[in-house]
């Protein structure tokens, strides 16, 4: 008996755009998704940290601010996530659908968990003044729900990359109850993502503090909480990254150890950036005006996120080699519709920009 690699055939209907364009949109959407998603998840963590120290005015204020903004970050994460998933499915449909059917139950539970987390965040934002204790408890539950969502996502994203195991799993249990627990990369990859989110959201805390400092308010403690938290989480990230690298199957690991410049380069660069980012963040609280350093650290972090996405893509390409060949997909580009989309996208961004501008105008005098 051999273990057959069973992968669904590429759809008979041609792609509605060239592969490179779909890849470009997939990457763009993913970048736009990763940031709010991380802030949403990691912010939930920091809101709990702040909320747990009730009575401390600085922490109360922080909890208040984070709670107010988390639903909006969630909206951004969901909106950009939908677009990412769309492009992911059109390109990687065969392995995506196969893996999601294997873990249908956990995957579908994402919908309920996300709704619980989202409403939980709203509940805290609306009720924290009236009922801080309940707000804290619900906030904790919401954070747990979103954490579970992230765990299911990592399961699917790793299972997708292991098509050689799909058939055996399916034959053994077709009821959609699988996770990808036996995959050695699962845990490091998930923790890498979660700790990364905590780090990024730590920068948000530092940013809030730095702005307060600028306004002459007492923001020092927030700056140091956020920046030190960021630095520690980032140091932990580096360790997790090593674990992740070690857990990769040999052919994928080899890419990062000189096998492919497109993987080794980003890895080296991100290690360097990480080191400088940690130093920058650790010393940041001592600055007179911490805001520029916070922004610089955020710039570093964004660069590292981009490098991570490049490395992620290298892993994906290698893992799917022989199973899914994007080059073999036919395309019949719908240029007219694509053009319409781009035009509407510009108009849509303009409209949202206009609304945000209205918000920045000084508040209108109350009308009679």
């Amino acid at each position, binding site marked *: *008996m*051999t*273990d*057959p690699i*069973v992968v*669904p*055939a590429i*759809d*008979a*209907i041609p792609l*509605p*755009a060239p592969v490179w364009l*779909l890849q470009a949109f997939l990457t763009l959407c993913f970048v736009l998704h990763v940031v709010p998603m991380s802030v949403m998840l990691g912010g939930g963590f920091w809101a709990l940290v702040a909320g747990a120290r009730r009575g401390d005015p600085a922490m109360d204020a922080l909890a208040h601010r984070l709670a107010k903004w988390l639903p*909006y970050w969630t*909206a951004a994460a*969901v*909106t950009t996530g*939908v*677009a990412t998933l*769309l492009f992911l*499915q*059109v390109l990687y*449909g065969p392995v995506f*659908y*196969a893996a*999601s*059917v*294997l873990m*249908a139950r956990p*995957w*579908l539970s*994402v*919908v309920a968990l*996300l*709704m619980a987390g*989202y409403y939980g965040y*709203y509940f805290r934002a609306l009720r924290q003044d009236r009922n801080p204790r309940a707000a804290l408890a619900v906030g904790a539950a919401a954070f747990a729900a979103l954490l579970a969502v992230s765990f299911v996502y990592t399961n699917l994203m790793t299972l997708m990359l292991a098509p050689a195991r*799909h058939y055996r799993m*399916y*034959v053994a249990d*077709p*009821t*959609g109850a699988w996770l990808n627990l036996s995959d050695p990369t699962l845990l490091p990859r998930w923790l890498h993502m979660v700790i990364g989110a905590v780090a990024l959201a730590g920068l948000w805390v530092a940013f809030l503090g730095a702005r307060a400092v600028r306004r002459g308010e007492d923001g020092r403690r927030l700056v140091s909480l956020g920046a030190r938290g960021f630095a520690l989480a980032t140091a932990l990230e580096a360790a997790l990254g090593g674990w992740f690298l070690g857990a990769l199957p040999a052919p994928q690991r080899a890419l990062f150890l000189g096998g492919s410049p497109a993987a080794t380069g980003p890895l080296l660069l991100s290690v360097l950036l990480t080191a400088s980012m940690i130093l920058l963040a650790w010393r940041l609280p001592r600055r007179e005006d911490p805001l520029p350093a916070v922004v610089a650290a955020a710039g570093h972090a964004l660069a590292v996120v981009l490098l991570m996405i490049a490395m992620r893509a290298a892993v994906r390409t290698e893992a799917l080699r022989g199973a899914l060949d994007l080059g073999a997909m036919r395309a019949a580009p*719908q240029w*007219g*519709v*694509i053009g*319409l*989309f781009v035009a*509407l*996208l510009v108009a*849509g961004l303009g*409209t*949202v920009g206009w*609304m945000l501008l*209205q*918000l920045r105008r000084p*508040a*209108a005098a109350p*009308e009679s």
Partner: protein
Amino acid sequence: MNYPVWQLELGGGLLIALVAVTHVFVSHFAVGGGLFLVLAERRAYRTGDAALLSWLRRHAKFFALLTLVFGAVSGVGIWFTIGLVHPAATSSLIHIFVWGWAIEWVFFFVEIAAAVVYASTWDRLDRPTHVAVGWIYFGAAFMSLVIINGILSFMFTPGDWLDPATRSFGHGFFNPTYWPSLVLRTLAAVAFAGLYVLATAWREPLRERSKLARYAALWALPATLAGPLAAVLYLKSAPGALEVIRGAVPAAALAFRLVVGCAVAYGLLLAAVALLSRRRPGIVNLPVGAALLLLGYGSIGGAELVRESIRKPFVIGNPSGGYLYVNGLTPAEAEATRASGLLPAARWVKGKDGAPLTEAERGAEVFRVACRGCHTVGGYRAIRRFVDHKPVAAIATMVGRLDKLRGRMPPFPGTAEEAHDLALWLGGLDGELEPQEPAGAPGAKVADGKALLQDKCLACHDLDDPKGSNPLRPKVKGWSAAVAYENLGKLSQLNAGMTGMDVTDERERKVLAGYLATLAAEK
């Protein structure tokens, strides 16, 4: 066949219906409610109605919390669900309409931003700007309906897209039911904007409630009254839909009655509330509001169920033709697998690793690929209901003519040998391949002769259809009731294809014999 089939005893179709019905409850309100909010806001400014304005703020907050979270996330839920239950169809739709969805996404994104801004800036923005944000919200929400409607109506009437010569985004999008379906959905959106007024009106002071009830009626009633007209247009452009709701598919007919019944009921109730509340504003209360919403929900949920069931045997298509059967095969693929075998072509079945399978095990795999799309073994639409206590030969005959049985099934997509394997497996589900009990559910009711004929004979016979396999009328030609009575007791001796089909219940045998004799005498 191409993708693994999720084995779910709840039934994939039922799961989709459940998720879709929850989403649709909010999604139309998300559109119509936007229009309602701006128009009511303008009116409140014009008339200087402060009480109305303060209710609107609360209503807008409720609106935002419901549509931003529940509406958006349950919409994602539908997408997750169809990807799991019908991966082949989802993949096809995404390949055809990715840019349609991308455009819808632009509107979705503007809609979300506008809803957040609108609900939270009553004090921060000046009035014209706030109203403008409301218009932006409504424009974006309506446009996302305009887009998604193209994709949803395509699933039912792919129209010219089916023909490879005219296959294009535009033909798929502006398909035969695009416009009537857009009108219907728009009317539903407006009606729901009215009904949802009652979701928050009961918390207002008594003196405000009558006015709000009249608003609700003003919005919901005309749109509801116009509904039948649009429905007629829709059904006219939808092949086979009329027969379906007239009873060809019992579940759809029932769902259609639910639509009509609930719409009439909420219409009458709302009219009564609007009229009576002038005298007795107290009737605008929570139970009445809940009842109205529930009835509205019944009607729109029923419409969703109709939409889900009229496409059969296709997921993309309708009874008169389609692109993809519910089992994930295209008609061309089904044609090919009928000739050269389903299991060799299927990917996610046992035996691909070279493990030898018995006949019955092969049959189980055929069931997974060909039937699981609509049937479960013992859960929703259980196959056991149809095959238990039937002998293998009888089941094999039924499998061979699935597309002629009740249920609008696709033709069996496998070879004769696979049909036999499937029948063998199905026949063994009840633990007896050759049941000693005669066919027919135990204790079957003695209905009229026509129903008995349907139950006992038409699974394997057509009545007349000269082209269809196995027409019955010529076979019973010249039978008197006595001859029929005699023969019904020994069908298995008449032909081996009817092994186990003898009618032994005395009353059934008599009624059916009488009916057969009248059939034999006709024409």
